[in-house]
């Protein structure tokens, strides 16, 4: 990157380090931090939406709907994450390709499953075989977001389901007494009040989600832990201009700092959110706020 980096073996420590930390692989490493942050930024709201939907289904008065919601929560919470990530993603990918194959290649005469092989026509490939690498990566990333959202959505659904039931019954009775319909009661009284009960559970989920990103590598998305392991490994001079012994400790130390900082920032943000949500609520916290203000 810098002009003095042409022959790293002649450089002193400081310049060597500067050159070393700006190689192409390190750029990929720094990019993977953004990738992880982006994943979290996208996954969290999607998972929350899945959770909200799941909780609404589970509360439905129509029994089959409620079974669907409860089934989703129980099933996904019960399956180990790793199994889910390995099985579900390959199945999802093959499912999409299977559907596209049926639509696009109706004249195909070979079986799709040939022994252990899964073969669809070229046009049905998702993404297409000749697509650029970034398309493949984006597709992998989208699968990752979707899978994370389903898994964490189930946990969020359970939290929200509990929170909805924690809203004091008199609040709802009052709403009904004013003549609000079931729907109005739900959206105007129940939902605004439930967040304060849901937040502790949701904040736990967020913390777990932050640390679950190494699962990404199972999906072929190279996250920060993959790069730290890869870059930190011993490098011999034959294959790199920057040979070094086992540096993994330093890389993982950097990750530790990153995760701790990120956790701290999350805690501060969640605390503020909690204060806002507590305002005017019929809880101990809300009551304390009212007294302090009065």
């Amino acid at each position, binding site marked *: 990157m810098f002009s003095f980096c042409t022959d790293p073996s002649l450089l002193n420590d400081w310049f060597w380090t500067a050159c070393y930390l700006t190689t192409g692989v390190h750029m990929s490493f720094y990019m993977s931090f953004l990738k992880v942050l982006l994943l979290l930024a996208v996954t969290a709201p999607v998972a929350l939406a899945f959770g909200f939907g799941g909780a609404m289904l589970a509360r439905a008065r129509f029994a089959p709907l409620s079974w669907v919601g409860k089934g989703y929560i129980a099933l996904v919470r019960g399956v180990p994450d790793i199994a889910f990530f390995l099985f579900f993603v390959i199945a999802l*990918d093959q499912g999409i390709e299977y559907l*596209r194959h049926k639509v696009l290649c109706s004249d195909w005469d070979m079986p799709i499953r040939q022994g252990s092989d*899964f*073969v669809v026509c070229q046009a049905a*490939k998702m993404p*297409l075989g000749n697509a650029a690498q970034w398309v493949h990566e984006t597709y992998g990333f989208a699968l990752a977001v979707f899978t994370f959202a389903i898994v964490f959505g189930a946990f969020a659904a359970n939290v929200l389901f509990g929170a909805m039931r924690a809203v004091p019954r008199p609040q709802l009775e009052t709403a009904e007494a004013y003549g609000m319909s079931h729907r109005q009661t739900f959206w105007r009284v129940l939902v605004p009040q439930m967040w304060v009960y849901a937040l502790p559970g949701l904040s736990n989920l967020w913390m777990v989600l932050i640390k679950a990103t190494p699962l990404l590598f199972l999906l072929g998305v190279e996250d920060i832990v993959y790069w730290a392991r890869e870059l930190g490994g011993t490098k011999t001079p034959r*294959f790199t201009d920057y040979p070094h012994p086992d540096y993994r400790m330093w890389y993982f130390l950097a990750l530790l700092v990153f995760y701790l900082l990120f956790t701290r920032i999350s805690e501060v943000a969640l605390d503020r959110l909690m204060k806002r949500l507590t305002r005017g609520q019929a809880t101990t916290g809300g009551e304390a706020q009212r007294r302090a203000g009065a």
Partner: protein
Amino acid sequence: MKKILLATAALSLTAGMAFAEAHSKTVRMGTEGAYPPYNFINDAGEVDGFERELGDELCKRAELTCEWVKNDWDSIIPNLVSSNYDTIMAGMSITDERKEVVAFTQNYYPPTASAYVAASEDADIEGGVVAGQTATIQAGHVAESGATLIEFATPEETVAAVRNGEADAVFADKDYLVPIVEESGGELMFVGDDVPLGDGIGMALRQSDTELRDTFDAVITEMKEDGTLNTMLKKWFGDDTNTYE
């Protein structure tokens, strides 16, 4: 929500149709990127190594457009058979067990010697603890040899296990170990005799992909005959490596 789902489905289908017309097949080459000199990630962040150079040459001769893809070793075969890429060139030895799932070209690297590396001359490689990479022929050999096998996901970790004393020795491809022993400054050394394992290293493809396999097979034969493969082997593995007649 339903509308969004339908819209995305429709969008991906139409986009697929638009692109399908212009399709010319790109061969996606899967590799691990963590096994120098066979394959590794260079300073620029690209796949590099013996297999990169060989693979590019094979594609050039076969007039194919090729693209390299990195994949974790553990899931490298499942992703091949579900068509996420089309070939594997990742220092993969040709063995009977693997042949049940995937098809191999002829070998492009002669049957390899595997070797033990330890931190001291008197390391017990027959009854002690030996490190190997998960799902490799070396790990299989150690498991049968009577030594206690500890498995690691990457080759790097197997060597680290010897350095920190967790394992008495590591058992891996000799070519992988040679540069490590040379660089260790006497800390690590070869112990015991070399063990010939497997039928050499070949390119793995789906069993249904016979056409592509025949193409690559023919080009490998061509490169063996005109000596270019031997030149490449010497470049990456040193002058005294095994070459083809």
